[in-house]
């Protein structure tokens, strides 16, 4: 099979201005992936499926990833002019100093598609797409029109991560009920506090059960315990 760089070149030849980036995987699997520009993704996907050499006719897996906003600290070399006394004369001299600069990278949601070719017996080719942020601009193009097998998996990603797939024929929640508002696989998801009865609590559950009890006492509510049979 072609390497990611070759696939990238093939895409750029077929879809001008595709803006594909390669995301390297430094691990031993070396499964590098292609980061697609969402606005061109449908064209690129159509090419990947229909190209006689790649013939990626089978979409095996769609999943989501949640990246929170994070602060990145970078060390930058800065050259600036400093007044210094050289040979008894005051002069302006260039000096290079190392500075730490911090900037916040906005969080984003990502979908990952794993493609194989049944015809050519090769794969996987990994595609990624990223949303602009995690709150309001969470739209990505749906690849269901190209690979039908994406339908339920994109619904699952919509359900659990809240990525809205434009062009999906039937975008409803798949696992949770329709009235449910949260997206449970997001990293800032808060579980319902139902730790009122934990007879064999340990580790994190014990912590949560204690928190639940403390919150209950702090709110002034009387303990609900007492009427049931002792275990």
């Amino acid at each position: 099979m072609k390497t990611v760089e070759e696939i990238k070149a093939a895409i750029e030849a077929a879809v001008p201005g595709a803006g594909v980036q390669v995301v390297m995987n430094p691990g031993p699997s070396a499964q590098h992936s292609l980061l697609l520009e969402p606005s061109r993704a449908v064209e690129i996907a159509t090419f990947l499926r229909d190209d006689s050499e790649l013939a990626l006719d089978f979409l095996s897996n769609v999943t989501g990833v949640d990246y929170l906003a994070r602060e990145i600290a970078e060390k930058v070399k800065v050259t600036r002019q400093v007044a210094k006394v050289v040979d008894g004369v005051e002069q302006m001299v260039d000096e290079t100093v190392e500075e730490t600069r911090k900037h916040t990278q906005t969080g984003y949601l990502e979908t990952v598609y794993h493609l194989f070719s049944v015809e050519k017996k090769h794969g996987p080719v990994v595609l990624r797409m990223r949303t602009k942020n995690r709150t309001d601009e969470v739209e990505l193009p749906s690849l269901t029109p190209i690979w039908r097998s994406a339908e339920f998996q994109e619904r699952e990603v919509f359900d659990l991560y809240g990525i809205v797939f434009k062009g999906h024929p039937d975008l409803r929640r798949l696992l949770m009920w329709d009235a449910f508002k949260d997206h449970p696989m997001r990293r800032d998801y808060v579980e319902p506090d139902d730790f009122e009865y934990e007879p064999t609590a340990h580790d994190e559950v014990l912590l949560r059960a204690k928190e639940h009890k403390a919150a209950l006492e702090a709110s002034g509510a009387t303990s609900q315990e007492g009427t049931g049979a002792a275990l």
Partner: protein
Amino acid sequence: MAVEEGLKIELGKQGVFVTTIEELYNWGRRSSVWPMQFGLACCAIEMIATTMARYDLARFGAEVFRPSPRQADLMIISGTVTKKMAPQVVRLYNQMAEPKYVIAMGACAISGGPFKQGYNVLKGIDRYIPVDVHIPGCPPRPEALLQAFMTLQKKIDGQHLTGEGRPRHLDAEAQGEFPVPEQGEHDLEPTSNPGVWPLPVVIR
């Protein structure tokens, strides 16, 4: 018991059969408990195995699995009850005619099991409907289901037709319908039915 046990056996030896209405009635009830044909997860496979020739639930008069709650006496909660499924389980239970019984089969049905800390799994069906027999196990073996079934038969046998603790269908005051939880924005609402499931005391 109107007739002493010893006297009854003695009379039996002489060819005289003595019984009470209560005994006869309960014998009839316990010998034809028809379960509902209804499975939720992997425990259902064990439940199916229990009905087949090797374990043969038919020996206990429970071989007729009814696909309608209207004709069923027993609900075997066989598997994980997700929060999405819980309202439907309670609704099916409400649709069953009295007298009705519930066996919670397996770790998931009694407590949530390995999925207990999941956001999507109910921590035991006994939070919404009264459960008569709990079976632990993941999944319980068919023998365990048979044991639970025999326990239920003993319970039915021991029910008096009058007085406190009589079966619900003979008690005009008894509550026969249980509120179906709503699927809320974050969790089921309410998260339990305190009338059925008062918060148990944890003793350490």
